[in-house]
């Protein structure tokens, strides 16, 4: 899909819908006929970002495939809160096997569909960051390397949330988790570890790799749609704030995701065949503090014995991302001076 040139419609393309736009130009989520792939009554926490990300992505995939979709799910919050016996929230064909094997199961489903001649049925696999960057990584790398026809979506809440907020290979430096306590000279998760899975995926030269957040629905839907136009291995990494694990207020979920992008800590981009093809520029450049302060997992960086040195190191990471992906365009650059609040 090429992106609509947006005429000025009050909320332009930022809000979910817009009464002034034609139905076709609105998001999937604005439609009362959206699939609601994951139904009400699920047991996700108040303000869960993961369930929101999953509904956004799968509803878009359902529309892109005319409902011909099978979703494979790794173990994790998304599976546990959606499907406690004897209930399920899934309104789509959905399959759960194990924590670490979702990419392989999805490869199998795709192969089975091909063998049965149901080439119109497309396959999505989904997992948390633990299931993706840690335990599922071997299977995933294989799926990439074989270019299997699966869209793999990682809902990144930066930790093993379902089992009580343990560190994963996607937990950011300085964040407190149950296994990276906020004590000692280097409180929280250590610097210099962890994996940047979107870049690892790109290194596999697969047709499509993209990142997104729950704060920009238009971008997320457009990326799912683009992914479904392509065959072969595709990877989408969605940042989904977790009020429980991050210690944030339940109503801040989208705001925090937006700040992750606006600070540069979470670069939002798309890449095809290993090359970055587009980035979402920062609209109002924001210092990392504004993002960190809203989360109790970083509380040890502020308060009575603050750690501006650690905050500065996090700012460096953001600045590196900004430089690497070119997240500040000239226009936004101009607004930097006036908008950076210190």
């Amino acid at each position: 899909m090429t992106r609509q040139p947006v005429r000025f419609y009050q909320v332009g393309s930022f809000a979910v819908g817009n009464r002034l736009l034609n139905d076709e130009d609105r998001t999937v989520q604005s439609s009362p006929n959206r699939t609601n792939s994951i139904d009400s009554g699920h047991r996700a926490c108040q303000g869960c970002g993961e369930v929101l990300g999953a509904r956004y992505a799968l509803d878009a995939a359902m529309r892109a495939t005319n409902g011909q979709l099978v979703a494979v799910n790794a173990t994790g919050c998304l599976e546990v809160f959606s499907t406690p016996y004897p209930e399920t929230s899934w309104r789509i064909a959905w399959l759960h096997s194990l924590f670490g094997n979702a990419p392989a199961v999805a490869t199998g489903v795709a192969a089975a569909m091909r063998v049965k001649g149901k080439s119109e049925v497309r396959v999505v696999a989904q997992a948390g960051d633990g299931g993706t960057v840690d335990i599922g990584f071997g299977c995933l790398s294989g799926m990439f390397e074989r270019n299997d026809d699966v869209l793999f979506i990682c809902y990144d809440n930066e930790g093993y949330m379902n089992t009580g907020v343990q560190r994963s290979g996607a937990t950011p430096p300085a964040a407190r988790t149950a296994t990276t306590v906020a004590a000692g000279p280097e409180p929280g998760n250590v610097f210099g570890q962890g994996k940047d899975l979107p870049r690892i995926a790109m290194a596999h030269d697969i047709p499509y790799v993209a990142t997104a957040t729950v704060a920009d629905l238009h971008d997320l839907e457009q990326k799912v749609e683009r992914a479904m136009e392509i065959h072969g291995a595709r990877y989408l990494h969605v940042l989904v704030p977790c009020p429980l694990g991050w210690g944030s207020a339940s109503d801040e979920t989208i705001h925090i995701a937006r700040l992750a992008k606006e600070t540069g800590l979470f670069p939002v981009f798309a890449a095809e065949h290993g090359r970055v093809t587009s980035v979402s520029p920062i609209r109002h450049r924001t210092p990392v503090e504004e993002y960190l302060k809203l989360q109790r997992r970083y509380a040890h960086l502020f308060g009575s014995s603050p750690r501006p040195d650690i905050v500065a190191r996090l700012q460096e990471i953001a600045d590196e991302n900004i430089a690497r992906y070119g997240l500040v365009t000239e226009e936004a650059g101009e607004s930097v001076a006036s908008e950076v609040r210190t």
Partner: protein
Amino acid sequence: METPFAITLNAGTSRANHTGSWRTERPLYVDRLPPCNNACPAGEDIQGWLYEAESGNYEAAWRKLVVDNPFPAIMGRICFHPCETACNRVQVDDAVGINAVERFLGDLALEHGWSLPVVTLDTGKRILVVGAGPAGLSAAYHLRRLGHQVRLVDSAEQLGGMMRYGIPAYRLPRVTLDAEIARVVDLGVEVELGHAVLDVEAERRAGNFDAVFLAVGAQIGKRVDIPAGDSSKVIDAVSFLHQVAEGDPPLLGRRVAVYGGGDTALDAARTARRLGATDAVIVYRRNRERMPAHGEELEQALGEGVTMRWLSTVDRFEGGRLVLETMRLNEQGFPEPTGEFEELDADALLLALGQDTDLSLLKTASDVVVNDGVVQVQASMMTGEDGVFAGGDAVPADRTATVAVGHGKRAAHGIDAYVMGTALESVPKHELATFEKLNTWYYSDAPRTERPELERIRRQTNFEEVVGGLTEENALFEARRCLSCGNCFECDNCFGVCPDNAVIKLGPGLRYEFDFDFCKGCGICVKECPCGAITMVPEII
């Protein structure tokens, strides 16, 4: 139960699990009062009519507007738009050009000949309105719409009050003024011109009126004692503008000084320029920051070659020469004499020092209380005298046409309650939609569109309108800059962002409702509503 191959379990839906029981707070849709509406002296539902205009429904927008104010084309030219000063968008980039859109709608209505709704009601009550300025005309309009018979009398030869005899044509073209007034008169207002009411009580009794609305304005230009030689021409600005409006301008000479710092001073100086004065100098005792005139008006005057003598008072005027005393501002900002004098050549001096009321028609209305030359009124605009109401410049308030229109409306409702023997209902105001209630992330960046201005050279010799109107495209753009403060504009955000699918979309124009079986009370919808139309309230247990 029969299950497909390899399926051992028939899953039930999670909708059996009513997560609404987790809630400690619940979201609630609200309508908050947009600051523009709150600031409009005529009580317009600005956000409401902009909402219609945003979708290009200009006639619907106009109809919504004229519910409160029958003069959008006039207001769109002369209102000092306190709404724009209050507009929340000021804190994003610049205020929404409310006044320009209002004018666009007003002009479009005149162009298309849209008429005001026909009056069908007849209460049989007769109301006398004295004075046909904006206050009297607005009252007549609203009284007619409430079904009362209205007799509108004015001592002048034409309707409009200061809108005709004060405000010059280069700011308010007479075709526009005439057309909007005619539309009100066409609702069946009985008009009597050239009739000065000398005793309001007698007039009320003679005509058997159920109530009276006094909208006599403040017609008398204030004068100060300035020693002046016999040949020196000193005229008050209000009389001067009045004569110009009647097509009978006095001869002023080439060098005109205007004494005062209000809008009337600017209008007098700009008018003098147009009548051929080479020098039009405004003498004002304070500085620019402390000038009561509006900045835009001052800019326009300066652009037309009007010059300023700040910090000066007129000491005397003799033999074509004004003697000015230089002032300095003390710590409180009050001007104090310095004892230093300057001279200024002038053929005429126009005094624009404010206006006084002429309330001699109240001589037998003994219960009407007049303080400081203005009539005291209650919230219903009723004076101390039963059935006698007053508004506009004759009562204590800001002296603007918009305030007068608002008074006319308020008085009409007060009169209606009085003559019908009903209680005047006061609708409680909604909570204000302040800037912090908004989530402005969602609005597109969109700088304001300014109205075109007539080239300066053409402004010096004629009374052609100075400020132009917006094109349709620009008016639409401007309307869409509105943030819809405090009032849902169906952006679907709440519907989209709820992690629990607990927002039900009811369809175009019908807004949304919550599904409290499943709403967990996370508050995301509240936080992400761009315009602050949702609030969180404690759950009642």
